[in-house]
């Protein structure tokens, strides 16, 4: 399997589908410890990307697609998730440059750059109960898998699985960033919505590879 422009486009389309399907579920997670709009925000952003994907020139690169995603998210999502995911995709785009496809090493750089972008903007540490708690395990797992010499499919699967576990692992935490931080102990027992959307996005990245 190859992570080319077609994969990138499929990833984003599938993400839009999955976020639409999880709109209410993400809103509910956010309502419990935030302000109830995370599903709405993500869905609005990814729906806005779809027509732009259709209008992409034939000759384009994964990096260009990621940049389009970044600018669209920045200009349509708002809230905390907009700038954070926007920066993530912008840095990811920068990490892959003009390459026509992404190999396993580049994939790890892409994921790490995305995560670093979020940290740069949001200043969250691991354990603060934010999307970083999905991203960082994902980056680490991807790095281990790639270091073990596996292909992009195994790297992506490792990242997606780690993100899913990371999202789940936010449940017992007290939040120190984002709206949930106002809740103190009352955030315990609830999953961070951003970590859940991150898990959905990375799962979609693997799924469209498997089903290509």
């Amino acid at each position, binding site marked *: 399997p190859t992570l080319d422009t077609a994969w990138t486009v499929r990833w984003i389309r599938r993400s839009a589908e999955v976020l639409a399907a999880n709109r209410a579920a993400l809103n509910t997670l956010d309502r419990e410890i935030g302000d109830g709009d995370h599903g709405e925000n993500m869905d609005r952003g990814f729906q806005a990307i779809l027509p732009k994907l259709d209008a992409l020139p034939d000759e384009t690169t994964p990096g260009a697609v990621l940049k389009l995603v970044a600018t669209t998210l920045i*200009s349509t999502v708002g809230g905390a998730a907009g700038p954070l995911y926007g920066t993530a995709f912008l840095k990811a785009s920068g990490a892959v440059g003009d390459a026509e496809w992404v190999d396993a090493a580049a994939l790890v750089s892409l994921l790490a750059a995305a995560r670093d972008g979020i940290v740069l903007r949001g200043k969250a540490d691991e354990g603060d109960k934010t999307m970083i708690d999905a991203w960082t395990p994902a980056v680490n797992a991807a790095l281990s898998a790639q270091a073990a010499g596996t292909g992009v499919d195994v790297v992506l699967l490792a990242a997606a699985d780690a993100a899913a576990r990371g999202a789940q692992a936010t449940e017992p935490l007290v939040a120190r960033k984002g709206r949930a931080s106002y809740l103190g102990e009352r955030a315990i027992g609830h999953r961070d919505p951003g970590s859940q959307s991150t898990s959905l996005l990375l799962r979609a990245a693997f799924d469209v590879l498997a089903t290509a």
Partner: protein
Amino acid sequence: MKKLINDPKNVVNDAVAGFEAAHGDIVRISHDPVYIVRNDAPVQGKVGIVSGGGSGHEPLHGGFVGYGMLDAAVPGAVFTSPTPDPILAATQAVDGGAGVLHIVKNYTGDVLNFETAADLASAEGIDVRAVIINDDVAVKDSLYTAGRRGVAGTVLVEKITGAAAERGDDLDAVVTVAEKVNSRVRTMGVALTPCVVPHAGEPSFVLADDEIEIGIGIHGEPGRERIKLEPADAIVDRLLGPILEDLPFVSGDEVLLFVNGMGGTPQIELYIVFRRAAEVLKEKGITVTRSLVGNYTTSLEMAGTSISVLKLDDELTGLWDAPVQTAALRWGR
């Protein structure tokens, strides 16, 4: 959910169009991207003041655009920070050559989106500064969190800072005034009933018939603690205690007392709250020399109130009294 709306997706656009139809004497509207700007913007040589944030807190911020207060307001989706594009456009629209101040409530989303817009505006040569409002004493341990939230005290910052800009203060001086007001105002709120975000269609939280939420945020974020309903006077005491301790306010202070309605509370109840708050301040030797009562920073139809106390001095009192002409706050012209 029963609301006077059409499509939930059009709530902000429809309302902004209505605002334009009602207040064309004070504001102009840009529909794409959406922002509300003072009729005579940009005012040459005056520092421009821009605020914004998620919708659902009306009249904050659009209702405060006009002479002596904001030059522009940028409404996001309901309870969702606006994106950088309209903030940038509004910043450009109000730049009269003396720079622009962003008044930003302390929420991650607002801070980040205004930050991006400020970067973009700076890149175009506009001198942009930001002041982050964080008057909510309900949030504890603010060192280890996203920090205190910006709530109803924002109205006071916008009024007083707007007056400073209107009298001709330069950008540094305007920033100093905004920071001064922010540093001297403290707020805490209570919710009796939740609000329903239109696109969500469900209450933002659930309170039993005899429960209230002390320290509620303006997006229906849960607060400090959930307790049984008490008489108004006891609730006021719970809100005012942490406010007065925090600054602290002391005997001899002159203050502005602001009792804010969350949207669904009858005005008669706000005055019942004001009565007790004024009484407590008096007992403590603190003099209420200015007051504001009404729905100024709301959370859709939430029932509840917040109390803000601002420590005044001659400068702040003078700026508070200066003429203002906006849809929601008006005097002196």
